[in-house]
């Protein structure tokens, strides 16, 4: 069963491309943030697929740890982006 | 015997899920969709849990499965209530 990491890894590449395209094309901020998050998930999928060693072998824990770090970093950036957007919104509302 | 029973239960659970999903897609308005979804899913999940519980060696894991079912029941009841209430309020002020 070594096909699984191919399947998931290549799907990860596809999701990266989809996310990147949307991140560049979207005009709404919220959907742009969603797009960057989707792209990040694609990269994480590649990493986890790399770690997979088939059902019998335990997977490589290092990429798992890297992805955990990546998820937390991504959520921090998302939170900051949304706070910045909220500030802009508030200013527009005040006008 | 036990295998057959759990096969039946899991199959029935799958059927309820299918029915719930079709209901979600086909039913005309939000309330009947909610009804289809929560009813079918709660029962479906219950059947699935019972079916898989028969296959498990350890009672501790069975207990965990039951807990999951209870949590899903509570969450889906509350969220269905919230969605329905929101919809009612939207109707109230057109």
């Amino acid at each position: 069963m070594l096909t699984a990491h191919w399947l998931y890894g290549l799907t990860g590449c596809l999701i990266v491309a989809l996310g990147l395209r949307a991140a560049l094309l979207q005009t709404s901020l919220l959907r742009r943030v969603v797009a960057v998050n989707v792209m990040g998930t694609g990269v994480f999928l590649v990493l986890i697929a790399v770690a997979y060693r088939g059902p019998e072998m335990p997977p490589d824990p290092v990429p798992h740890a890297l992805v955990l770090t990546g998820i937390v970093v991504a959520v921090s950036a998302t939170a900051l982006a949304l706070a910045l957007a909220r500030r802009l919104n508030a200013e527009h509302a005040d006008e | 015997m036990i295998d057959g029973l759990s096969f039946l239960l899991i199959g029935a659970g799958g059927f309820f899920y299918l029915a719930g999903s079709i209901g979600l897609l086909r039913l005309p308005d939000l309330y009947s969709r909610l009804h289809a979804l929560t009813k079918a899913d709660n029962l479906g999940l219950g059947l699935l849990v019972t079916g898989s519980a028969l296959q498990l060696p350890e009672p501790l894991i069975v207990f965990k499965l039951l807990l999951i079912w209870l949590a899903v029941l509570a969450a889906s009841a509350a969220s269905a209530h919230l969605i329905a209430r929101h919809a009612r309020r939207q109707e109230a002020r057109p």
Partner: protein
Amino acid sequence: MSELLIWLVALPLAGALAALLLPRRATATAIATGVATTLAAAALLHGVATQGVMHYAIGGWTGGLGIALRADGLSALLVLMNALVVLAASVYASAYFRKPSQRARFWPLWLLLWTSLNALLLSGDLFNLYVTLELVGLSAVALASLGGQTAAVQAALRYLLVGLLGSMLFLAGVSLIYAAYATLDLATLARVAEAGPILWSALALMSAGLLLKTALFPLHFWLPPAHASAPAPVSAVLSALVVKAAFYLVLRLWLDVFPDVVTAQAAAVLGVLGAGAILWGSWRALHAERLKVLAAYSTVAQLGYLFLFFPLLQALPSDASRDLALGGLVILALTHGLAKAGLFLAIGVVQQRSGHDTIRDLDGTAQRLPATTFAIALAGVALIGLPPSGAFLGKWQLLAGSFAAGQWLWILVTIIGSLLAAAYIFRVLGHAFGHGPYPNVAVTLAREEWPALLLTLTAAVVLGLAAAPVWSVLETRL
């Protein structure tokens, strides 16, 4: 001795926490941290110069299991430049931010940014570099939005999204490398790397992400608004250090980690983009209406010069002439860092004192703020590349390398770029020296004017006259 490496990260980080927990003493804490970290940076440079490359295995885990910190001549020089710039900008910031609430918000983020810059320059691990890139990005964005005006927040938001995209591309490259080589350690990679589809793609992805972060033309669109609308000390550090951190990483990857993977065509692409950056950035700087916008576009142009070196380094045989060119590159980067930071601090003084930074209305600035105007002039000397500035030596090496490699195009671009730089600097000075109804004074505001003056003086005079050690330090390479 090698513990210095971890102290250079731990000191500013501890300072950030202390500034966060003791908001009333934040300024004093930050300055004390700044002095200590600068001393550590000087000790690092001394150590690297005398003992060669330094290593530190964090947690004692070696063999790629843990993360290693490394310092060679290049990183030690940049760490010291960071320290000088941040320290000077800190002194300035202590006067710039007047309200206690502003200071309480500024200092922790400021020290976090410094932590991340040092961590990036010293890291020897690909994934750790990704984390430091994100830390640099997020703390820089948070600082850039501190002003709170709509323009600043908007620019910061775009900066954040661009930065995120860049780091995701970088991480995609890192995953490829891990997939193929199962290591993240730069030193190990340098040993096992072989040219082929995997590393070409990985290097292309990582470089694309980093070029976005270092704002190489035509990916520079986010830089001018972000740098022009941030608070002055923040602009100084963004323009002088933050973009250069991403540049450092490109240089490190192309020159030291994957030298055999890089092709002449790829290096030529970077050279052409650099040339585009010089021409476009200088042209826009010439037409800028505000001083800060001018300085930001000038950063776009000056980064272009650094990228002109890539095709040269690729073409030159690895002997003395290549080392000379590399030294020229580094000294150009150092000069620009110091001069641009000084320029932004000086602009900050002008902006706060006259309430604006519109170039057309600068008349009389030389009379009111002579020291600051002098600092702007000195920064101009360095940006144009006049002797005795460090940039003169750097550009000299650029021209010499272009002759040696027979790549004439870069000579033409350098000359045009320098002429345009002279034009935009003299445009500013022409206005600043115009007469206004003000009395003549010397230094008016010590804490605000001295940092800019010292930085630009170092860039325009000291670095140029005492440049020889730079080349000898650079000989310690990973």
